[in-house]
Each structure stands twice: as C-alpha cells, then as structure tokens.
C-alpha cells in the first residue's frame, strides 16, 4: 500500500479544480495503484457524487474531494454553454443523446428549458443587424419572444414559456436546430416553475 505517495491531497485538489473549470467534463476516472478515483458532476446537485471509490480505502480523502464538483454544479457557468449547440449530431453521438437528457452542469436546478419545437434555423434577432431578443441575464415573461426558428422562410417566434431570468443561450445565431433540441435555459422567478 503505497498509494499515498502516488496521489497526494494537493494532486487531488488540482484535479478537482481542473474539472471544475472545464465545461467539457462530466465524468472523471482515475486509477493509481490501489486507489480508484471517480468524480462525477451532477447538475441538480441532488445526489452526492460518487467521490472516492477507493477499493482499499481512500485514506481520508473522501470528505475533501467529493462535495467539490457538486458545489461547482450549483454555480451558473459564466459563459453560455454551447455543448449541445447547433453542431450536427454524428451517427454515434445521436444515439446516446436524448432531448430530455438536458440538465448539464451549471443550469439552475429548477431550470425551464426552451426546446426547439421544429427543425429549422435558429435566430436570436428579428433581422441580421437588430438587437437580440434576449441576452443571458435578461428578465422574461412567459410570452416574451426569445428567438425565431425559420422553417423555409417562415419565421416562427418562440416564447419563453415561463417568467424568469435567461441563464443560457445554447445555440449560436444562424445554426441549424432539430426538433426537441434545448435552445434556451430560464431560471424561473421565485415561486414559479417550482414543482
């Protein structure tokens, strides 16, 4: 048992910081000698992450490492997350992804996700040089237009559907969207949208 020499507490903090600062990671596995490390990001923060799954004991690292990713998940990410953006699904990717699998890290726990009701092109503004309908941080009412989906030159205004604050705009202006694709995230105003 020489795992302490291989993986120090400082190493672990650095790893956690690295994963916290990168939107692209949702899971992280590491095995060094007898120690197995398993970090997982939970968007809702409702389940404690796996943390240390050291088969032969985690040597007191458990408490330090485990809560960190969960905490980071509750903080809104600073920039719009463009993970499921307009990029075309590649054959392999399409399979694992479902439109309901839409609560990545950084979204408010009670987020209301505006999904594209149709296949088409996503526009943030009414015309090329106009101001966007909404920016991240904007207050919206349920009937506020948040974007347009163009289907064959027909412009379909999409409403927020819930009052609150826009936290994320997931798709770039002019990008193709498909049916059911999450496009905008809204944190409902207090007392609204709570189950």
């Amino acid at each position: 048992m020489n795992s302490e020499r291989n993986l120090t507490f400082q190493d672990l903090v650095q790893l956690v910081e690295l994963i916290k600062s990168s939107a692209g990671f949702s899971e992280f596995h590491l095995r060094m000698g007898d120690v197995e490390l398993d970090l997982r990001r939970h968007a809702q923060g409702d389940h404690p992450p796996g943390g240390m799954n050291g088969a032969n004991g985690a040597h007191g690292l458990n408490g330090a490492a485990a809560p960190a990713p969960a905490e980071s998940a509750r903080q809104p990410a600073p920039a719009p997350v463009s993970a499921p953006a307009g990029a075309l699904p590649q054959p392999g990717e399409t399979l694992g992804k479902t439109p309901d699998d839409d609560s990545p890290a950084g979204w408010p726990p009670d987020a209301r996700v505006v999904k594209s009701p149709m296949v088409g092109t996503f526009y943030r503004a009414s015309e090329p040089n106009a101001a966007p309908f909404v920016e991240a941080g904007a207050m919206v009412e349920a009937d506020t237009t948040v974007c347009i989906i163009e289907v064959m030159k027909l412009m379909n205004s999409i409403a927020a559907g819930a009052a609150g604050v826009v936290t994320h705009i997931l798709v770039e202006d002019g990008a193709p969207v498909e049916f059911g694709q999450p496009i905008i995230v809204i944190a409902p105003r207090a007392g609204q949208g709570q189950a």
Partner: protein
Amino acid sequence: MNSRAGSAADAAVDAKRFKRVLVANRGEIAVRIIRACRDLGIETVQVYSDADRDSLPVRLADRAVCIGPARSGESYLNARFIVSAALVHGADAIHPGYGFLSENAGFAALCEQEGVTFIGPSARVISLMGDKAMARRMADEAGVPTTPGSRGTVASAAEARAIAVELGYPVLLKAAAGGGGRGMRVVREPAELDLQFGDAAREAKAAFGDGSIYVEKFLSRVRHIEIQILSDGETVLHLGERDCSAQRRNQKLLEESPSPALGEALRAEIGAAAVRLCRHVGYRSAGTIECILDPETQRFHFMEMNTRVQVEHPVTECVTGIDIVKEQIRVAQGEALGIAQRDIEVRGHSIECRINAEDPARNFAPCPGTVHGFHAPGGPGVRVDSHLFSGYRIPPYYDSLLAKLIVWGRSRDEAIARMRRALGEMRVEGVTTTIPFHLSLLDDPHFVRGEIHTRFVEERLLETR
C-alpha cells in the same frame, strides 16, 4: 470511384451530381436508400422522429436530424419540416422511399419549388397517376386494358350504387389516393354498400387526407401481377413482372419473380403495355404498373400505378442484376440509363418473404416489443434487407415490417428450397413474427405448384390452420 476527385472537365459534369441526399423515410427502406447512396459516393442525411432515435438508419447515415415527435403527421408526414431539414443541412435531393410522402404531389412540388430534387417523377405525373381514377383514364388513353368500373371518382354512395348495378356485384370500392389496401372494400351485395362506402371514405381520408372513392368490378380468382418500370425520360424499360398474389386483406406477404402464371407472349404484351402507359404520361424514374391477371383467360387489366420504389423491388433486382434504387437516384440527377430493353435478361427465380412483427395465430395482430436477439440468414442466394439489430425496440407507431428475406435460385424449386432453409436459420428473439406463416405457405402444395390467387391465403391457408 470518387466522383469528387476529378479533373476540371469532370467537375462540369459533377455539378449536377448529388453531394448529399436526405432520406425521408424510416426502417428497412431508409437503410436500403443509405446503402444505394453510399454505393454512389453520396452523403446521407437521415431525418427521424423521436421514436426512431435509436434506429439503424440513424446510426448508418452521415448525419441525422430529429424532425418531430413519434406521430408521423408531425414528423415523417410533415413536408415543410422535411424540406426545411434538407435546406438547413445542404441536401441536394430527397429520397421519399415508399409510403409516407412518397406519392404526395404537394411534397414533390414543394421540393421543386425550394430547389431540392425530389427523387421520383415530377409532381405533375404523381398527381396524374397518384389519383387512381385519373390513372385509369390515362391507361384507357394509352390503350392499356382496365377493369370495368367508374370513369372517375364517385361523389356519393348513391352514385356508387348506380354503377354497381351496371357492373354487377361484387364490386370493389377503392380510394382514389390510396395504396396498400387502405380505403379499399369489397361489396358483395347492395345492402352493404352504404356502410362500406362510408368506411372506405373515412379510412381513405384518415390515411391519405383524401376520401375520394371510385368503383371497379371485383374479379376473384385473379393474380396480382406488377411490372417494374425504369425510365430516364427518354428510354423506358420494363424489368419483368412480380407476382404478389400471396396476400392477406390486400397486404402483400410474399412476392416472386417471374410469375409462375405468365407465359412468354403475355409477359411481353404486359411489359409493352406498361411501357406505353409510362411514355404516354411522360414518366421518369422507377415505378410500378399493377395489374390483375385472370389465369384462365390469360387476360390482364391495369389496376394502378405506384410512382415510387416498391417494398418488393429486391426480387426484380435479384433476377435482373439491376440496382433499382441506385438507378432511380442516377436518373434523378440527370443521368441516362445507358441500357436498352434487349440488355435486360431475367435470370432464374427470386422470392421475397416479408417478415413482420405480427402474430399469425392472433389474426396477424402487430407485436411491437424489443428484439433481444437477431440472426440474419446467409449463404448462397440469400439477401436480407432489414433495420433490425439485437436490442432494437420496435416502436408501436409505424408499420410492422421487420425484414425482407429475399432468395434467388436457378429455378423456382431451388428458390423455394433456399427460402425454407433461410427461414429456418433466421432468428428474431423477443417478438412474434410471421416466419412460421411463411414456412407453412411454402409447404402448401398449391403454392408449390404455383397455383394461387389473391384470396388464396385467406380462403385456404388461414381457414384450414
């Protein structure tokens, strides 16, 4: 063969070639189209509904786009969403497969209007031949015999009744926009007519959005013969016939080519008539002329034309060696067929069995579920067109076709023996299929002698089981 890596001279020719084709269908035919595109070096965009997210064509295509929920009216039947997906993803052309929007003239027109090539005949020809009553008139004009019946659609049950009296019962009510037996009713006596007319019209309205009905004399003890057509607009070829007499409630179960009931002279005559009709309407693409044949009198009557690829096209491919879907795409991008009628030779015999997720013991009730294990048969002369894989969940929203098992043999007997062998090898675990039904059909002495008619399965095979 890489058409994109040519010289400058090639590039001028290539300008017309499709770079990317959108597949506006699902299931085995979507897989079939993707394969043809890949053989031609064309990229594919597969559109799909929520229910088909985990499907084989979605996995196989170069790109996949979700266009709507499970309900086909909001996905596979939504012309605007499909054309929009083609425009957004830079597809030059749309292949509609069969069913769904494949014979919808409005969809073809929308494609034409938006500058996307519809892989099929023009919207004008689809509306001409897609309207079954109009198609009968075209056949009359081209000198192709039709079954006695109404000159066009009938406006009411009363009008249908008047024509039925002239024709003599039984009569057949058919949906002008129809196909696949939907909106079709056999009326045996006057008392049934009003009720059946209402049912047929409602069914047609629900299935095709058009409840127009026409009336034909119902002929029994006939065979269903259809002629495969391939046309580039200049050259019109027929690729021989398929015999689809093994049906249940007008749903084809097993098809073969050539027909055991057709002599050489009649084969040439039907083929020539089919070519004449296609020339008359200016047909361009793959298509099928459906006829009924009275084996006693050796007379045939035009029934309808399908302006699309058929489910059973592989049997013709097996006996002619011509890839129909590939030719259909080539013609759509402006290429000439490059072969003449004399180049077409029908060799040997081919049979297709439709393997459906249906329970023959429970009146062919659909059996959606999860396919826990799938083993496709193989070996000489065996082809399987299917979208199945182990773990596939058959959605309950669409048709129950799981696989088409196609065999080729030098003779009909050899083809039957191969089909028995292949059916015995095939495993679809977790759902009930029509495999046992096909085995019993192949064992029937009437079938083996080639002596069946379109009511045979219902009257003989299913009654005596």
